[in-house]
């Protein structure tokens, strides 16, 4: 943010009030995460006799070890691995097919170009939640239940990334393509040496957004991973709750919740600038 000075009042009491309101807001917003963290560091006994403590206990290592290597249905380490493959697979897959199709649409004139463009455009409109039953049948028909390809492919059928790249490619100066043609460069050389390097920032920003999108999926993995070994962490947490009247293993469940949010939070916070840029670009 740029420094903005001026005569608009921002000092003394008023500044102090602003800071304290801001801190209060941050505390309220953070409270659920804090409480989950505390619950992941105490014993089950401390949680089931409310009120639970509000400061962390000494069971951090015990609970996180239990979650990662034993879990409830399956070790959480396995679920983390599945989530990682799904999130990276969706992000990389979407970026690759979109770069290629956007390049084709922008830099070529070929039969059916407009039709394909509108076909891709239409997929913007329908979230997977709306077509779950038939999509499930397709995936089951291919024998892709409980597989990484079943987790990944249906979710890369969307057009946001293609549109973003198309818009960006339109801003690449024509002189560059002209020069490439004069030099006798083949289209794919131009793609590799000019288009992809110039799109670096956009690719990175999109990766952040798509990674979080993939990591946070819930309904789709819930439907197609019936084998606990294939569960992703975000959908696996709910599966850790016992059915009926048994008491949930709260410390392990809350440790799993914390583990489930660490990768996307790290990505967002460490790549904040790219993330905000990706957000603004992909939504507008």
């Amino acid at each position, binding site marked *: *943010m740029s420094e*903005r000075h*001026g005569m*608009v009042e*921002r000092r003394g009491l008023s500044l102090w009030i*602003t*800071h304290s*309101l801001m801190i209060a807001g*941050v505390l309220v*917003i953070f409270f*659920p*995460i804090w*409480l989950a963290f505390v*619950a992941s560091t105490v014993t089950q006994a401390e949680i089931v006799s*409310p*009120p*639970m403590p*509000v400061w962390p206990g000494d069971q951090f290592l015990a609970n996180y070890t239990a979650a990662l290597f034993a879990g409830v249905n399956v070790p959480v380490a396995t679920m983390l691995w599945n989530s990682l493959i799904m999130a990276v697979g969706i992000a990389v897959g979407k970026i690759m097919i*979109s770069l*290629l*199709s956007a390049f*084709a649409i922008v*830099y*070529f*004139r*070929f039969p*059916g*170009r407009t039709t394909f463009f509108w*076909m*891709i455009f*239409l*997929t913007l*409109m*329908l*979230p997977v*939640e*709306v077509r*779950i*039953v*038939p999509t499930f*049948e397709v995936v089951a028909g291919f024998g892709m239940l409980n597989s990484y390809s079943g987790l990944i*492919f249906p979710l890369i*059928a969307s*057009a946001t990334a*293609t549109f973003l790249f198309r818009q960006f490619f*339109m801003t690449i100066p*024509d002189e560059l*393509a002209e020069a490439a*043609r004069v030099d006798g460069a083949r289209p794919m050389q131009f793609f590799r040496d000019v288009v992809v390097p110039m799109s670096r920032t956009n690719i990175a920003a999109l990766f952040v957004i798509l990674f979080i999108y993939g*990591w*946070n999926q819930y309904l789709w993995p819930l439907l197609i991973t019936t084998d606990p070994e294939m569960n992703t962490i975000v*959908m696996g*947490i*709910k599966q850790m709750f016992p059915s009926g009247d048994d008491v949930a293993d709260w410390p392990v469940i*809350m440790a799993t919740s914390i583990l489930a949010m660490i990768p996307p*939070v790290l990505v*967002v*916070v460490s790549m904040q600038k790219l*993330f905000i840029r990706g957000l603004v670009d992909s*939504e507008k």
Partner: protein
Amino acid sequence: MEKRVTFRGWALPLLLIAPQVAISIVFFFYPAAQAIWQSLFIPDPFGLSTQFVGLGNFEFLLSDKFYRASFGTTAIFSILVTLCSMVPALFLAVLADRLIKGSGIYRTLLIWPYAVAPAVAGVLWMFMFNTRVGVVSWYLGQFGYDWNHVLNDAEAMGLVVVASAWGRISYNFLFFLAALQSVPRSVIEAAAIDGARFWKRFFTIVLPLLSPTAFFLLVVNVVYAFFETFGVIHTITAGGPQQATTILVYKVFADGFVGQDLGSSSAQSVILLVVVGLLTVVQFKYVEKRVHY
């Protein structure tokens, strides 16, 4: 908008576009067509054959009191989620905008919840309000308020609304802050010279300038509440008590996968398709308008 300089050939571009077109056909167009087709049939109770009923599934749905109730539930849910995520976000963004130093730190802290999956947010809030071990429900009990979202419709709705809105506050905050920071300083200072105090300036100058952003966020948040809150509802209430928190997307799942009523579930998908279409048109109309400013 077209490029002047293009490459020759048509085999290569077709090859380049093939992966995306293939995936769209297999996982998007075919299932969408299936949904429309299946919505015209009802399976017999044993699932052995299906019978063509035309628009019968739609007629049945629109006269079904549970489905109509689900429309109402979705409307209330979306309005509340949108309000509960936009108002606090605007408030925080106005505060952050007033600070020259430190607003970066607050922003870093406030974007955390955006990264938390709706389903995980659901687990966190369900834990706080759990009827047996929840801290918040325990303190409410100390004040004599008996919290039970498992039985009480309004409390269940309140909880899924707050849990859904929570992560969206981050998202809205980022957009509001960006919009506030692009309000020209000269305008604000001119008003300050004329003696307008902070709140007066806010309501007469800043808020109108924010309205394009606010409208954009309104549409985006409604879309979010419609389609991306499944995880929150599934983890906290599973649509209950009775059907008090069964929003439309949840009902597609509940009827299609739990109730195995494919005809009805497909018809519901088709209705949602129309809803998405309308929302998209609204969104694009708006985007176009913005471009012409």
